[in-house]
Structures are given as structure tokens and as C-alpha cells.
């Protein structure tokens, strides 16, 4: 791998370009040399000045290429179809109140419980694919089996993507540049078509449409949320998405969940909003650091959800009227 010319190396492993680029190695003009020969062209002074560790760069390259090859080859054999939680115990050592909880792709599970009750710990257990080796004693199975340790250690294959309401964009890029950068880091084949799909999906979720040339930092709250959700659904490599409360303003939450679910994600949602919590088939009740019990959403609750949704749309209509500068009349409640 290291005894072929850089040109050949790049033909065989195009992603090696990112390794050179991130390590600030300008290979232009050295394509016919091997990587080692290239590294040898640096003078002692340059090595010291730019803090270049030749031996490490040389030995890291095969490790990097190997990781990227695995990452690219993962499409089929690494798909996650289901996530199973096996019970541990709460902070007082009481065994958790369920036998086995399995969630499949395209399912939504809601999580309820006061702040500090152990939601973060549950998420950490999933992210770490706990094997009775965390404070709760829970175990996690993927596709019904003890999972591969790569979910713990690989930086490019994280099991859980997170969406929380504290999240912001911090990069100073336009929407299109931002998405292109993400697409490139995920090495997708046809970035432009993926970008177009994300923009279309995000605009579908957001109340107000945005342009490709808008900087991500100047999107409104609803637009940012919409873009984050569409991006996570379509471009994130993580098969499980944890949502920590999506606020009500400026985004169609029902559509947002649908988008995630149709992208074959397993959705875990911490929320106390009845409109969202009742949308899930099951909800996990967390108390004192453990899962106290699991509730199956009843038929009665589903019917109630219909009514609550009607009430919600009433409020939304009123809000829309106010935004357009109109007055509200009691007729609003008439139908």
C-alpha cells in the first residue's frame, strides 16, 4: 500500500486525498513518488517547523485506508434492523420493570420521566452497547445478537445520532456548502442529488422556505430544526436517532417523525408533549435511574390523540391569523 506511487494510491483509494488534506500535506508535484519518498523530501527544519512525524504519518496511512474501506463497505452487512434492551436495575438496585424491549427500524418509542431520572444514562447505555458493564447493568442487543465492538470504538460508525433543542449550527457556511461538506465526509456517491433531496425535505418541514445560499447560522429556529432533521434522516450514518423534545414552533413535527421513520431509522424520543408521546406505540417510563415500566399506547389514547391534534391545529390557526395581522373571533371555536 505504501510502496506504490501517490498517483496510483489515489486512483485506488480516492479518499486518501482527505488524509493528505487534513494532515496539511501538499502532494502536488510528487504524484509519481511513493508516500515515503514524498515524506523524505522534507528538510529537518521543515519537519520541526510543521511538527511532522514521518514515521507516524507513514504507519497511520494504512490504518486510515482500512477504516475508510470498512466504512464504505458497511452498507449491506452492517445494517441495523432492531435494537433490544435487556433489563438492569435502578439506582436502588431494584430490577427494572420489563422483560425485554425490542424496537425495530421505522418504529418510534417515547421516553418519559423527570429531568435527572436517568434518560441520559439510558441513551449512553445504547450508544455504548452496554453488556452488563455500566452502572445500570443493562445489556443491548443489535439485530438480536451481542453487537460488534466497533460500535464502541469507531469514530465514523456511531450508533446513535442526537437531535436536541439546544442544538445550533456553528459553522459559517451556506446551506449548500454545509450539506456538501457533510456529504463529502460521508463519501456519498452523488452529493448533488442527496443535497437536493435534503433541501426539498427540509423545506417541506419548515413553515418558511429557505434558499441554498442562506448561511446556516441565519436560518430561523424552525428552519434550522427542519434542516437538522432532514440531514440526519437522509445523510447521517447512525441507525438510531434520539430526539430530545422538538419544539412546536415553525416545523411540522408529524412530518418530521415520518421522514425519520421512512428513512429506516429507529427513533427514540424523550418528550412530554402528548401529541408526540402518543404517536409512539410504546413509551418507556423512567424513574430513579431505571426503566420503571413500559406502556403500550392504548386504543383510547390513540383516539384522544385525534382530539388533541384538532385542538392543536386550532391554536396553530389562531397563531397564523395573528401573524398575518388579523383579529381573532369566537368563530374560531365554532367548528
Amino acid at each position: 500500500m505504501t510502496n506504490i506511487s501517490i498517483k496510483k494510491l489515489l486512483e485506488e483509494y480516492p479518499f486518501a486525498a482527505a488524509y493528505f488534506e487534513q494532515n496539511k500535506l501538499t502532494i502536488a508535484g510528487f504524484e509519481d513518488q511513493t508516500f515515503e519518498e514524498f515524506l523524505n523530501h522534507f528538510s529537518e527544519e521543515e519537519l520541526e517547523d510543521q511538527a511532522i512525524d514521518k514515521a507516524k504519518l507513514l504507519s497511520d496511512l494504512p490504518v486510515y485506508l482500512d477504516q475508510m474501506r470498512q466504512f464504505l463497505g458497511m452498507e449491506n452487512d452492517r445494517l441495523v434492523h432492531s435494537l433490544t434492551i435487556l433489563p438492569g436495575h435502578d439506582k436502588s438496585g431494584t430490577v427494572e420493570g420489563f422483560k425485554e424491549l425490542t424496537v425495530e427500524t421505522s418504529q418510534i418509542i417515547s421516553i418519559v420521566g423527570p429531568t435527572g431520572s436517568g434518560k441520559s444514562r439510558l441513551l449512553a447505555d445504547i450508544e455504548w452497547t452496554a453488556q452488563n458493564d455500566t452502572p445500570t447493568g443493562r445489556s443491548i442487543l443489535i439485530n438480536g445478537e451481542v453487537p460488534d465492538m466497533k460500535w464502541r470504538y469507531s469514530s465514523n460508525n456511531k450508533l446513535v445520532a442526537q437531535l436536541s433543542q439546544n442544538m445550533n449550527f456553528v459553522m459559517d457556511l451556506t446551506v449548500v456548502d454545509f450539506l456538501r461538506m457533510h456529504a463529502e465526509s460521508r463519501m456519498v456517491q452523488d452529493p448533488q442529488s442527496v443535497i437536493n433531496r435534503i433541501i426539498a425535505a427540509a423545506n417541506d418541514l419548515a413553515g418558511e422556505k429557505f434558499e441554498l445560499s442562506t448561511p446556516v447560522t441565519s436560518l430561523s429556529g424552525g428552519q434550522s430544526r427542519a434542516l437538522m432533521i432532514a440531514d440526519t434522516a437522509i445523510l447521517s450514518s447512525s441507525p438510531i436517532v434520539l430526539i430530545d423534545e422538538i419544539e412546536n414552533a415553525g416545523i411540522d413535527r408529524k412530518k418530521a417523525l415520518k421522514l425519520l421513520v421512512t428513512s429506516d431509522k429507529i427513533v427514540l424520543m424523550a418528550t412530554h408533549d402528548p401529541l408526540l408521546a402518543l404517536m409512539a406505540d410504546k413509551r418507556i417510563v423512567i424513574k430513579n435511574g431505571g426503566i420503571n415500566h413500559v406502556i403500550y399506547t392504548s386504543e383510547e389514547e390513540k383516539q384522544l390523540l385525534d382530539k388533541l391534534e384538532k385542538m392543536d391545529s386550532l391554536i396553530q390557526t389562531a397563531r397564523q391569523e395573528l401573524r398575518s395581522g388579523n383579529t381573532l373571533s369566537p368563530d374560531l371555536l365554532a367548528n
Partner: protein
Amino acid sequence: MNLIVFSGPPSSGKTSVILKTISSFHDKNIKVGVVKFDCLYTDDDVAYEKAGIPVKKGLSGALCPDHFFASNIEEVVNWGNEEKLDLLITESAGLCNRCSPYLKEVKGVCVIDNLSGINTPKKIGPMLKSADFVVITKGDIVSQAEREVFASCVSSVNPRAITMHVNGLTGQGAYELASLLYDENQNIQTVQGMRLRFPMPSALCSYCLGETRIGEAYQMGNVKKIDLGGDKK
């Protein structure tokens, strides 16, 4: 005694990560102490004291903090052994992003945060590139896309390191980090003769020696000039 060297840019969350990590050691009856290295000021020792953790601090003052670290780590390890610690953690701020305090035989952890910008992995030298573990913090306040891009930039400059996300506020991920750091079989009595993983920047120009006047006439020793292009003699 175990020894672990933590470093990372200022305000990246080193102290929070260490505190959360230590709290999961307490449950296992592992006695942990911390030595904090900084330049002019730190009150992190108070945070450690409050948590009941034996702590010492070293301020480098007029010296380069990482050079100060290298000159004092031997004494610090002796202190840890006298205190009968099971695990000694040193924490130091990488102030110029060029130094790295890691020793070859000792686990090195670099803490960087998602807010520091996508080019940060390029800007930080050996402190990031030669770490065994890279802990990324503040993931709860940036978008998932940014977390993913940031992590992939980190792994392209240091593919061998284990990269983890730890939340310094909730402690999410800290238990897992702790489980990877402690090694029952490691027993470091002294660090004498160990080597730094990467040489620190060389200096010794007039300004190292206290010169305050500006101008070429006053500059001696290891002086480097900026390249502004154009016609230059």
C-alpha cells in the same frame, strides 16, 4: 500507580470531563489524584477539592507551560506515589497548539470541543495527533452533521486513537471513558528516563530572555521571519 496525561485547548472542557470520569472511579474504590498545570491562573483546583479529590497545581508563570510540565512530571509522579494514589491524572492546557505533553509509555488523552471549528483538527499538532484517546465535548449544542464532520476530521489526522463523545455537563460517556482508561496491571513508580512522544518547539531568541524592544537590531538567536512574499532581500 496508573498515570494518565490529559491535555487540550483552554476551555475545551478538560476539568469537567476529568471530574465526571473520576466520579465513576470512586464507585470502584480507585483512589484518584489530580495535578493541574496552567500558565498564569487556575481555580480548577478548587473544583477538584470540592469533589474531595487530592489536588496540586503548578503555574508555569514566565515559562512555557509544557516545558514546565516536562521539567516537573517526575516530582509530580513521586507525589502521587507518596499519596498512595491508584491513579494520577495530570491536566494541562495546550496553549500554543504545538506542544504535546504525552509520554511514550503513558496514556494520553486530548480533549477538544465541537465549538472550536472544523479546522481545529488541522490546527492542533502533536497534542491531537499523538493522543491515544480523543474526547470530543459540547456535542449537545451543535448539529448532528457538525458532530459527524468534526469526528471524521479528527480520525483522519489520528486514525489510531479511540474517539469518544463525552458530555461534561451530564457526564454522558464519562463512565465509558473511565472503563477504558484504568489498567489494573500498570504500576508506574517513576517516569525517569521515559520519553516525550514528540519534541517540543525550540526557541531561545532575544524575547525568551526578556527583551521588550521591537526591531531587528534587538533580535538574536533563533529568530524566524514571516514570509510576506514580494520583493524581499
